């Protein structure tokens, strides 16, 4: 495995700046759904777990990888589900298109 440390650090720094710029604009009204959404997005760690479990290198790595997939997938499904349920409830009093 080749490690491109400097590129990864650049990527991290740029992503952090984008994160600050985008998230700062989010209204406090939606801070709870924001947290559950970022939780679901963060569960992208599942891709690492899938490779860990699927490569089947040792019993330990397969077992730990499998548990990790379960944990992350439940965050993906639960996180998106509850975020959507919350956002559905936010309605304006101004007239809306049907």
């Amino acid at each position, binding site marked *: 495995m080749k490690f491109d440390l400097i590129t990864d650090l650049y990527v991290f720094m740029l992503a952090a700046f984008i994160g*600050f710029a985008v998230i700062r604009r989010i209204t406090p009204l939606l801070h709870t759904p924001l947290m559950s959404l970022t*939780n679901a997005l*963060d569960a992208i760690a599942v891709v690492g777990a899938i490779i860990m479990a699927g490569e089947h290198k040792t019993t330990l790595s397969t077992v730990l990888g499998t548990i990790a997939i*379960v944990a992350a997938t439940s965050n993906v499904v639960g996180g998106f589900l509850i975020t959507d349920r919350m956002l559905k409830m936010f309605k304006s009093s101004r007239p809306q298109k049907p």
Partner: protein
Amino acid sequence: MNFHSPYLIESTYLIATALFILSLKFMSSPTTARHGVWAGEVGMLLAIVGTLLNAGIVDYRWVAIALVLGSIIGVPLGMVHMTAVPQRTALSHCFGALCVTLVGASEFYLQSPNVPKFTMSVLAMEVILGSLTFTGSLMAAGKLQEWLPQRPITFKGQNFVNLGLLAGTVGVAIFLVIHPERADLFPIILGVPFMLGIMMIIPIGGADMPTIISLLNSYAGLSAAAMGFVLNSKLLIIAGALDGASGFILSVNMSKAMNRSFTNVVFGAFGQEQAKAVGGVEERPVKSATPEEAAAILGAASKVIIVPGYGMAVAQAQHKVRELYDTLTKRGVDVKFGIHPVAGRMPGHMNVLLAEADIPYDKLMDIDDANSDFPQTDVVLIIGANDVTNPAARTDKSSPIYGMPILDVDKARTVMVIKRGMSPGFAGIDNPLYYLDKTLMLFGDAKAFVGSIVRELTGGGGHG
């Protein structure tokens, strides 16, 4: 076409990354926010499908079982009641951290004893943050669900012990970077942060939960980013950085809203010094009112602001509050809500509860808008909030909450406070608001009291 091509897989990751950033961008307005969920879902699906194409995967059985099992567990976690959202959020931080920690640990044992220095250092960061977030979030969820005592539990030398544990862990981690062949030491950087997570949350009280949940959110994100460095996955680095940034912004917001520094929240359980402040309070007269009187005053007002706090959530009063809102609005009264950033148990908690009760979001004001409206307001009705309305934060330099941004409810013509009794708030601080001439105390259960006011206003014949 070769479906196992790394280029194909990486392009799914690239699109997923763009969709994740768009997803957060859509969240900036309630009108587009649901697109954000869809963008996130499509991105996630693409990335998972892309990963499944990876040529290195030889055995799909366990992956498939785990994906199905995770989805089955995820559905009830997504369907919890809105009042349980703070503990659900804490629990999902806990699951996220578990995933990261387990992958980190097995990566170490796969590469041991020849772990490159750089890999070892990010790996150490990944498992330390992951393990700490795992138990910390579990404890936070337990406190929020009231399985654990919500009161801060403190003991002498607590901070000293915690800092010592942290320093020790970092020391062992540095040693492992230099001597990665000492696999026998690895359990230490897993186990000690595990303990530390518990120790860190024990002294945290309920009212500090918004800050702590945000902080754990940030840790969960950073540990995922560290995992991205270990696996050399740009997608993970970016998703982790976005989550980390979000948690960080929210925790800074929360500590600002309480006028406390980060370190103060984490290391200074509120209780101790403030307990003294309560001692010297003499019994002072307060004016109280019945539901009939309260209804008469509200009915005669032209502008009303309702200030909800955690007490409203505890009493499950939000649907009665919605009835009150409807009744008053029908009479032509302008009703809005003033929401303090730390009201409730997580950032934005009150907004979600009120939205669930079908109150339009354009009636929910943040602290700045509310404060500019209070001087033109006839009646402020406070339901289950205390410290965030305490004018001592503005005037009394000796008050422990001096300097904290508060809702200036005392600028309104009349203030009504629904409260069970005269007990002080979480910080144990007396609230001078209650002794003002313009303040009426409405003693009783929030849900029942609001219900009685509604009955009086609609003339439904009920008497209290």
